[in-house]
């Protein structure tokens, strides 16, 4: 364990440099640069808000802010995992020539997405000011759901990166999967729809309750928009999901990482 921590501290400079490089690449040759990370979500939220609150008549107060808070959390997870998926394969040239801890690659992509989420957080604040969402002191608890979802995403990223080395189908399948996942998370529709929509004798909620992202997204909304601190039960669910996926991802990755070099 101590040796692992030592390796990690030794390579954290590399991790930070790789993330910084990703950021530079992302904003190269755009006049507004980093501002796009803030502007883009706002514009996107406005489009979604016009379509769904005007055309589809969703009854949701502060719709644009509602959408943006959910999308912030979900898009982080979606971006991080989709990029991590191919990260080990794209790192092949390094893996084959020098020794370095292989988890650097999925971790790089996850941290990069996390930094992007922090930029977009500014967009959320701007949007909430525009919408006139009242201030609650619970807003200051916003890092808690972010930490939950970060831990969850690290685990899932490690798992997907491992799977994709051996079966390249995972990459193709995942983009479909993430779309379905997005619709099973209350991002664009109001949370009330979950209990109102009936599928035979079940409500939509009976499926969605198995979706970890549902808990992270609603946790974030509760503290940021509703001024409510989620109870112990929700916290336990969030923590358990995050830790379960972290352990699963680390276990799978560690077990298979020595074989990566033979398949990339």
């Amino acid at each position, binding site marked *: 364990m101590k040796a692992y921590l030592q390796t990690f501290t030794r390579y954290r*400079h590399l991790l930070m440099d790789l993330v910084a490089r990703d950021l530079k690449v992302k904003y190269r040759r755009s006049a507004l640069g980093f501002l796009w990370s803030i502007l883009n979500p706002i514009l996107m939220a406005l489009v979604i808000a016009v379509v769904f609150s005007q055309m589809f008549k969703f009854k949701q107060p502060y719709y644009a802010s509602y959408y943006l808070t959910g999308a912030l959390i979900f898009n982080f997870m979606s971006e991080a995992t989709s990029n991590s998926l191919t990260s080990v394969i794209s790192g092949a040239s390094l893996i084959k020539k020098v*020794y370095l801890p292989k988890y650097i690659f999925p971790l790089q992509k996850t941290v990069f997405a996390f930094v992007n989420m922090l930029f977009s957080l500014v967009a959320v604040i701007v949007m909430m000011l525009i919408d006139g969402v009242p201030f609650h002191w619970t807003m200051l608890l916003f890092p808690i759901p972010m930490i939950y979802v970060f831990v969850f995403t690290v685990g899932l990223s490690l798992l997907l990166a491992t799977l994709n080395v051996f*079966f390249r189908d995972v990459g193709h399948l995942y983009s479909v999967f993430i779309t379905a996942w997005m619709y099973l998370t209350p991002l664009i529709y109001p949370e009330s729809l979950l209990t109102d929509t009936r599928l035979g004798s079940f409500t939509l909620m009976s499926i969605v309750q198995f979706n970890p992202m549902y808990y992270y997204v609603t946790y974030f909304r509760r503290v940021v928009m509703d001024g409510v601190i989620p109870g112990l039960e929700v916290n336990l669910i969030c923590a358990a999901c995050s830790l379960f996926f972290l352990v699963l991802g680390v276990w799978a990755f560690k077990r298979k990482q020595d074989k990566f070099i033979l*398949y990339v």
Partner: protein
Amino acid sequence: MPNAIEVNNVTMKFNMSKDKVDSIKEYFIKMCKRQLRFEEFTALQNVSVNIEKGDVFGIVGLNGSGKSTFLKVVSGILKPTEGWAKTYGTISPLIELGAGFDMDLTARENVLLNGLVLGYTKKHMKEKFDEIIEFAELQDFVDVALKNFSSGMVARLGFAVATITKPDILIVDEILSVGDFLFQQKCEERIKELMANDTTVLIVSHSIEQIERLCKHVMWLDHGNVKMLGDMKTVCDAYKSM
């Protein structure tokens, strides 16, 4: 002298699957048809060797005898199928020309990146930057993308980065044969300097003269087996008279 590298009974096998299975569909079809056959290829067979600290150790052998695989096992890139390899101290591997170089980046960025990949800090690399460029004689090309470099220039840069911070173990695979003779001399001088500093050097070379000039001990690999292991003179003479 304590050991710097211990290699114990290492066997390295590769699956040479006749057709690469990398989709789930193929995997299941092949599994059902019981066609998941792998032909095993043994690159190293029960190799054991202890290398003392400060030794300059050469490896000779024909193409495909497992020299590069051995170096990759020692540097931790490959995990052996059986047995284990242990190293004590920091390793600088020069397994391939410009390992870990990104061809789209400039020399300056690559020096930094390569240093970080080897586990050094950014600050350290910035301090050493001028020294590296001077040794590699690339002062005029600092901000040129590496893809525009000749292979000799890339090799020089790679060697300069790997040796600038006196590693405990330096692993050199065949790369000294690239630069011109002046640079080769410079590299050999640097290796001798490192030797004086107790760095353990592991060299693979097809140039038997180079091995004779630099090494104290030599291992002769033949089809993954250790054919001979001992002091330079005995092994080199036997190898030449093969």
